């Protein structure tokens, strides 16, 4: 490691921020003991080169393995670990992480580093152009997708077609686990978000269109990480169900007001528990 970058990393790892972070990175984690530490290392080493204050939030989702122990033992002072007593779904974990974040710009990234953190800057450029929500995409001609199984390709194509034709969401890839928000957009969307399972991304993008937020899509490199927890057939059924749920929620006016008041106390932020690792 170059000495200057090593020094930046060590400073971030050992010195609490004295200013509000410019960036927050949220990692939802459910039973990620085999993947979480290398992912944290990759994210920390890259983010520390950006020369801006930033924080890392790991939102545990009721892991039953050693994920929580591993993260809490890292001794990184600007890493916040949110502990959940039980599994509540990825959407709930991301929401807890978003609510706990203090950055002006918030990225949520999957724990498997399937989209390398080095593409943070590509999404940030779009936010700096004025977009409220920027979505990493595996669907564009410039996207670089590796090791994606045929079942996941078929699954993705089917979802894209449905989303585009029925929901008029101007995003080809709603499910990529690499999305960036301005703090204002994140608060607006996640305060109204009701879907806690796999389709929460779709709901958030649906809400972004509904509230007139500017949404951009950026082609990213994506590597299908070994050990993916996505069961394409099961998820397809849940996705179709959630499409109906989202539409029904909207017709019933359930998105007209906040559904989750942004917490002000740390225990409320975490839901069941909060620990600064």
């Amino acid at each position, binding site marked *: *490691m170059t000495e200057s*970058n090593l020094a930046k990393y060590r400073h971030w790892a050992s010195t609490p921020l004295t200013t509000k972070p410019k960036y927050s990175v949220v990692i939802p984690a459910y039973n990620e003991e085999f993947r979480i530490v290398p992912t944290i290392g*990759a994210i*920390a080493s890259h983010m520390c080169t950006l020369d801006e204050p930033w924080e890392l939030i790991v939102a545990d989702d009721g892991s039953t393995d050693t994920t929580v122990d591993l993260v809490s033992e890292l001794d990184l002072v600007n890493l916040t670990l949110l502990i959940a007593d039980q599994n509540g779904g990825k959407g709930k974990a991301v929401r807890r992480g978003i609510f706990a974040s203090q950055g002006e710009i918030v990225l949520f990234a999957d724990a498997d580093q399937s989209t390398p953190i080095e593409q943070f800057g590509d999404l940030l450029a779009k936010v700096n152009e004025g977009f409220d929500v920027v979505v990493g995409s595996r669907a564009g001609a410039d996207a670089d997708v590796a090791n994606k199984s045929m079942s996941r390709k078929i699954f993705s194509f089917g979802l894209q077609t449905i989303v585009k034709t029925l929901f008029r969401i101007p995003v080809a890839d709603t499910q990529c686990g690499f999305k960036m928000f301005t703090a204002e957009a994140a608060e607006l969307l996640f305060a109204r978000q009701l879907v806690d399972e796999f389709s929460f991304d779709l709901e958030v993008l649906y809400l972004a269109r509904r509230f007139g937020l500017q949404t951009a899509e950026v082609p990213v490199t994506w*590597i299908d990480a070994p050990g993916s927890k996505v069961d394409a057939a099961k998820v397809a059924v849940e996705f179709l169900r959630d499409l109906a749920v989202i539409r029904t929620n909207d017709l019933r006016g359930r998105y007209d007001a906040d559904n989750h008041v942004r917490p002000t106390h740390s225990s409320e932020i975490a839901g069941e528990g909060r620990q600064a690792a």
Partner: protein
Amino acid sequence: MDISVTETPAPTTRSLTLRGRFDAHEAPAFRDALDAAMDNGHHDLAVVLTDVEFVDSTALAELVRGMKRCREAGGDLALVSPSDPVRVILELTKLDAAFTIR
């Protein structure tokens, strides 16, 4: 990930230079290259990680396996010039204390 094996002046030494992302998809190729070098009597291996962007747990396990095999044969497996993210990952996993890093 690319793997290139380089001969060195010392007869028992080989250098393995890796490039790209070193994860479970790439671990079998690394294992094959390492085992081939070991089977040919090269017990001192230098694994060059300058251009490796990311290592996952499987890759770390392969490196540990290689280190143990080298040391059991009287040699060593050294990690050479690890990139920024790899260096941090080694530190967070405390494997920096287990490996010879140069």
